[in-house]
């Protein structure tokens, strides 16, 4: 059994969909942190079967809306003195700006400079979003 020290003061991102941990690591630019960061992949989970987990030593600002877009089932736990003091369950945000780009080659965002790439939640059950300019579908999953 792999053992990774528990966090004294920091953040634990739990219940990440298995395989998505590295994507979150990259998106949050955790490689730029000086502090200790651990990604644990494929942890056994009763609820999910397998999950990923990220432990960050120290408190950093995390955009919960963006994280919710990447993995709405993840939870963000803030730890102090070795105990979880807040637990935030993520959800799909109503809109995401400059997180993903529209893949429709006919969309104006493919040629117009300095335009924000914006998507609005269109179906919460399917986790689908639509580009606000061309209405193309983007699935968060």
């Amino acid at each position: 059994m792999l053992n990774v020290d528990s966090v004294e003061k920091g953040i634990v991102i739990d219940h990440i969909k298995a395989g998505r941990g590295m994507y979150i690591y990259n998106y949050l630019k955790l490689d730029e942190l000086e502090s200790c960061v651990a990604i644990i992949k494929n942890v056994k989970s009763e609820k999910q079967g397998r999950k990923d987990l990220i432990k960050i030593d120290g408190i950093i600002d995390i955009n919960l809306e963006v994280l919710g877009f990447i993995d709405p089932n993840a939870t963000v736990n803030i730890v102090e003195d070795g105990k979880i003091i807040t637990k935030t369950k993520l959800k799909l945000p109503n809109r995401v700006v400059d997180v993903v780009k529209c893949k429709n080659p006919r969309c104006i965002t493919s040629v117009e400079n300095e335009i924000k790439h914006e998507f609005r939640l269109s179906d919460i059950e399917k986790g689908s979003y639509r580009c606000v300019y061309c209405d193309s579908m983007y699935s968060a999953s």
Partner: protein
Amino acid sequence: MLKGRHLIDPMDFSPEEIDEILQLSDEIIKNPRLYADVCKGYILATLFFEPSTRTRLSFEAAMLRLGGSVTGFSSADASSAVKGESVADTVKTISNYADICAMRHPKEGAPKIAAMYSDIPVINGGDGGHHHPTQTLTDLLTIRSLKGRLSNFTVGFCGDLKFGRTVHSLIKALSRYENIKFVLVSPEELRVPDYIKDEVLTKKRIDFVEVDKLEEIMPALDILYMTRVQKERFFNEEDYIRLKDSFILDLNKLENAKDDMIIMHPLPRVNEISMEVDSDRRAAYFKQTKYGMYVRMGLIMKLLGVEI
């Protein structure tokens, strides 16, 4: 209040606001002379980054018939877009010259960006395969004028229902009225996209059927909306050639149709309606272009806040 608003998506306006525009268009049809000078001193800019005859001329004729003036360009080559100017910068400049503008652009969402940066009302004159709201207004005015109402119909759409933006917009627009049923006639490859079925028809519990033969459903239809299979919407020429002649309407197919059914088409047609149908009393597609001009007159007046 429609003054100062943009029209980008056909659903930007409520059914009541659309009714206001249709009502005014009706008044203009009844007494066009009364409106011949109402837009004197106003300028419409037609920003057409893509070729179009019908839509651009219809906008220009509408403004001229209201006594206003027109400026603009009719292809991207004739604008600074060829030098790499953004849509945002183009419209910021045009806002200083004109009082209202109509834009057609090959990229989807371009008029929305124009509206974000414009100080004057922007009317979407078609953005790629996306929206064409003034065609929807044209269709609604045609139906209301020729059938006397916008509810209690069985409407058949035939041809390219996948890429046909006019079809998607009209389905959405008509789905806001009472007791509308849809019959969707197309080959498998050109069916209405799932999102229209899921987010509009199923969600609003609207009756619809998908069939691949026009003849068998013809007797049920109050309105038949034909569409062209458009070459420019295909990435692959082989698919276009295989599907372009899928559905052609001729007098034989009309034998079982209701006497008071109307046949509509956004035009231009290629061969999907045989010319022999043109003289049938049910053919409404050339009248439709006239209604298109009148509805644009009503729209321009409302967005400028001009009254007689």
